[in-house]
């Protein structure tokens, strides 16, 4: 049983405590049990009913997403929402005060349950988060959240919480009226008893009272004109976040609230459940749920079979190379409480690295995310050196020097001599052979790739690159470290381009070919963003620098084959020094406004025969084929590793579920057909479906079984 009831001195307590689980989840079984208990309690004359959780740091984590994932029919979706709504209504209708006591995470259904109570008591627990994240899974709250939250905390706060999906802390909850009281976790049950005495004394306390607003806030909330302003602002924000409208749940959430704000409960809930059902069965929602699972799996990734190995705790790191990446890595380390010893060849370089680190903090200070004393204390964790002093006690040394194998090998050889026999030697290389570097080190078993993405503080992915020498201990420790730094790790075997760059550069190169054939830079980029990529290939090239891109293409060509030979036109662009953003001009010119660089566009004659559908197919299919090769060569183990890498490392559209999920949605047969058609046209082997894909076709299988 997941739900227990006990009664003492006329006060009832319902406790959620799911067996064999760290969290409480409102699956149908639990809801049914809860429902039964509520039926029994309906007739009682209790002083108050307390609803609490027995789990540490968790109230109720939400509904069972698996159950929602399995919904394929509108009627099932509506029924599921209605089932939950009815239980919450029952709770709301109890004739005595109900008090939700929340000492941990209360998301989705957990928050909706709390909303159906008369009072919400929360604690100062740092881990406490309350909110309605359903929009991020592609649907809307379905257990009365859209009905109750706005009525309680007002339109502005309610809309923000529902549309952003972001949960808030207990102090924020108290500020906006979502929490009635905050108590320390210690002695909580006594405080709750005292609270019940307090509210019992006045019968008026039993009646629902929305939050009272003052001043300008009151104007916005009470006035239909004010409402218009709020809806308008929210819609503008959504358009900014999702300009192409790939994620319908945001606007739908606004729509539900707008429609139901003044409706009585039954009608409001009816609209909510219908909207929930409509969205829950969409492919977008299904994909977002899959991406959610993917993200959870990889954020908490553990090595199967390595449970016995204890990861080495890492308290101090050395960073060699104080460039943009080195400075960014030092900032990340300092932010996560890891001491950073930043080395470079001279003080000027170190100054640049410190500045890069500080600039990240300065931005955060501007956005009021952190205050000056905290920044001072964190910057204090970074110190610079031109020699190897301070290296003897580091737990990990991360090299981020220039992308030159000889220099990196030299660094590895030198650093091997100065670090301890336990310390890990990691490389942030994006394209060079970690195996070669390992051979240059004193102890290759402690060498591993640790590839961050730019900018370090914002990009969530980290590629952990293993060589044939990397020990399991090194891998386990590095994996833990990646998670400690708040990154999502994907484990990749050492091969040219690893995972992300190998796939991405194929995409950029193909875009280059389309351009060479007479394509428009703007149109090609538009095709990609219409597909859902966060930026088009030429915008991306300008961000990274065409020189960097071409250099990596050479490495990939040498290591993987002629398909990576960089398009000749790129050389012409490079000759004119149009490197990209860093030189002010690339495929675009970066002034007050960004415009296409006519000198680059002018290198080709625009051809009217370029077909849009084929162009986008080429760019995406070449990525899929390469991803399949990566699986074929066992560079990563599973398709979900490819997908998490592409989503977190390049922003591949989550609404498509990932590159290979998208491939499955096309269907392997259609994919092969498309590839063979392109191969017939270009005849150079790059579109030839690889063995992995052909094997899938022959078996009638999919990337995701």
């Amino acid at each position: 049983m997941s739900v227990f009831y006990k009664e003492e001195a006329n006060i009832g307590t319902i406790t959620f405590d799911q067996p064999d689980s760290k969290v409480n989840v409102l699956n149908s079984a639990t809801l049914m049990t809860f429902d039964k208990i509520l039926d029994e309690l309906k007739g009682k004359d209790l002083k108050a009913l307390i609803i609490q959780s027995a789990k540490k740091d968790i109230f109720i984590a939400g509904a069972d997403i698996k159950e929602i994932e399995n919904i394929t029919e509108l009627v099932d979706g509506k029924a599921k929402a209605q089932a939950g709504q009815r239980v919450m209504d029952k709770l709301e209708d109890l004739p005595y005060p109900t008090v939700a006591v929340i000492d941990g995470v209360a998301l989705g259904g957990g928050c909706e349950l709390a909303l159906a109570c008369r009072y919400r008591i929360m604690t100062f627990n740092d881990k406490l988060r309350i909110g309605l994240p359903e929009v991020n899974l592609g649907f809307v709250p379905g257990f009365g959240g859209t009905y109750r939250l706005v009525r309680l905390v007002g339109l502005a706060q309610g809309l923000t919480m529902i549309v952003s999906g972001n949960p808030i802390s207990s102090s924020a909850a108290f500020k906006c009226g979502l929490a009635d009281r905050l108590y320390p976790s210690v002695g909580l049950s006594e405080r709750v008893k005292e609270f019940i005495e307090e509210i019992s004394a006045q019968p008026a306390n039993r009646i629902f009272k929305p939050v009272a607003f003052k001043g300008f806030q009151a104007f916005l909330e009470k006035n239909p004109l004010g409402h218009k302003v709020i809806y308008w602002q929210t819609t503008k924000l959504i358009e900014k976040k999702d300009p192409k409208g790939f994620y319908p749940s945001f606007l739908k959430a606004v729509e539900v609230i707008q429609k139901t704000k003044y409706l009585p409960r039954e009608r409001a809930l009816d609209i909510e459940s219908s909207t929930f059902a409509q969205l829950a069965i969409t492919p977008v929602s299904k994909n977002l749920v899959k991406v959610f699972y993917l993200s959870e799996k990889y954020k908490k990734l553990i090595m199967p079979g390595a449970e016995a190995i204890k990861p080495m705790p890492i308290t101090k790191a050395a960073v060699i190379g104080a460039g943009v990446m080195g400075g960014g890595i030092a900032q990340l380390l300092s932010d996560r409480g890891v001491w950073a010893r930043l080395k470079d060849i001279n003080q000027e370089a170190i100054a640049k690295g410190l500045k890069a680190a500080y600039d990240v903090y300065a931005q955060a200070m501007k956005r009021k995310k952190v205050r000056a004393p905290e920044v001072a204390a964190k910057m204090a964790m970074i110190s610079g050196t031109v020699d190897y002093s301070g290296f003897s006690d580091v737990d990990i040394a991360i090299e981020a020097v220039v992308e030159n194998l000889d220099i990196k090998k030299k660094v590895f050889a030198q650093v091997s001599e100065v670090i301890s026999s336990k310390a890990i030697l990691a490389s942030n290389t994006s394209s060079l052979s970690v195996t070669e570097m390992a051979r240059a080190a004193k102890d290759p078993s402690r060498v591993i790739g640790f590839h961050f993405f730019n900018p370090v503080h914002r990009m969530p992915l980290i590629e952990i690159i293993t060589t044939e020498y990397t020990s399991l201990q090194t891998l386990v420790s590095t994996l833990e470290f990646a998670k400690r730094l708040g990154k999502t790790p994907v484990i990749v075997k050492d091969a040219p381009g690893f995972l992300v760059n190998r796939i991405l550069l194929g995409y950029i190169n193909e875009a280059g070919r389309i351009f060479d054939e007479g394509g428009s830079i703007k149109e090609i980029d538009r095709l990609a963003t219409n597909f859902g990529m966060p930026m088009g290939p030429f915008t991306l090239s300008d961000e990274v620098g065409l020189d960097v891109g071409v250099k990596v293409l050479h490495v990939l060509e040498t290591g993987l084959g002629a398909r990576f030979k960089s398009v000749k036109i790129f050389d012409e662009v490079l000759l004119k020094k149009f490197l990209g953003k860093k030189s002010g001009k690339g495929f675009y010119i970066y002034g007050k406004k960004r415009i296409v660089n006519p000198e680059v566009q002018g290198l080709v004659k625009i051809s009217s025969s370029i077909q849009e559908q084929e162009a986008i197919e080429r760019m995406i299919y070449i990525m899929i084929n390469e991803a399949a090769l990566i699986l074929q060569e066992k560079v990563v183990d599973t398709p979900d590793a490819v997908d998490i890498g592409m989503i977190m490392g390049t922003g591949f559209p989550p609404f498509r579920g990932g590159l290979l999920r998208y491939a499955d949605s096309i269907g392997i047969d259609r994919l092969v057909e498309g590839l063979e058609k392109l191969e017939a046209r270009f005849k150079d082997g790059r579109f030839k479906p690889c063995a992995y894909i052909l094997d899938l076709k022959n078996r009638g299988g999919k990337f995701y079984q």
Partner: protein
Amino acid sequence: MDRIAIVDGIRTPFSKMGANFNNLSAQELGRIAARELIERMGLDVKLIDEVIFGCVAQPAEAANIARVIALLAGVPKTTPAFTVHRNCASGIEAVVNAAIKIKAGEGSCYLTGGTESMSNIPFLLSKEYQEILTEISRAKTLPAKLQSFAKIRAHHFLMPRIGLQMGLTDPVCGLNMGQTAEVLVKEFGITRREQDEFALASHQKAIAAREILREEIIPVIPGPKYKEAVIDDNGPREGQTLEALAKLKPFFEKGTGTVTAGNSSQVTDGACAILVVSESRAKELGMKPLGFLRSFAFAGVEPNRMGIGPAHAIPKALKKAGMKLSDMQAIEINEAFASQVIACERALASEKFAKDFGYEGYTGAIDPAKLNVHGGAIALGHPVGTTGARLILTMLKTLKRNDLNVGIASLCIGGGQGAAVILER
């Protein structure tokens, strides 16, 4: 006998007030020195028993600056820390406190040092103005606030009390430090020229010692701009000349004075960190000390003649160690003012002085070749809370570099004291 080992030390460059370190607080300077010492030594911070730092103008926002420095430098929060103040000898006081604690068996490993940011010594409001402002903030109604506001006069905010000035003025005798130097000028008949020559020598020695001094200095890249590294002390002037010095007007006594900005120490920012460990513990930990603290002494003198302090502290320290002045192979007398150092030299060389104060056998003439061999505060600057520690560090490095065995470092102290420490290898 378990001696007191000075294991290692490091200092920031010394920067003239208002220059490169203008935006670095004293706690930030101290933290930089402390952290870098920890990094360079590969020191396990858990070994530190306590952190002791000297600081004169202790910033209001960093009460017990030693604790702030300790926490920011990564010393465990369970390790206690305290701050000491003996005016210009606060740096020495920190090291001496560690020695005393070691001798008392309180601990065996101490992170000490000194820090000062004279650039950031604030201006202060007059008490009258402070009370008016307090009144305004306490007043509950707007009319009441305005009423209090009307009491403000121009002089309240146009004439703040200048912290630096107040700090450098002795409250008992009412003279500022420069004026006490003028007292000694008259007492010992020291000429303007003698002071300028002394100052010139200080600059020349400091310039010549640039490379050598880099051995004890860590480059500092001041935030938040992080533009470039400060590598050397910026006080020493290349191409300093007697003529240039002679042009300066007396700073502390108009018309008749001889003490100028050129023959006085410079107002400066800087910090220094030193690790003090008992000899046996240092051996246990495999540390190779720079040297050992042989003896120390403090002596009191009239506040209006504070500059003569070293002439009293030196014999006292020698007597404690059972050594003679001629035994000292290197001597540092902090150059608060050229006149004050010269006065000390003359006093120590005088038999009458020795007789008057009972210092016979512990005074003598100082060989100029042994004195302040790499320049002194006139060229390098005098961040008041730090200098004492720097003198110890510089002295030990000098002894080591030249394969010498024993030296004495001393300072005069505002308020009328002198301090001296004997260091041996």
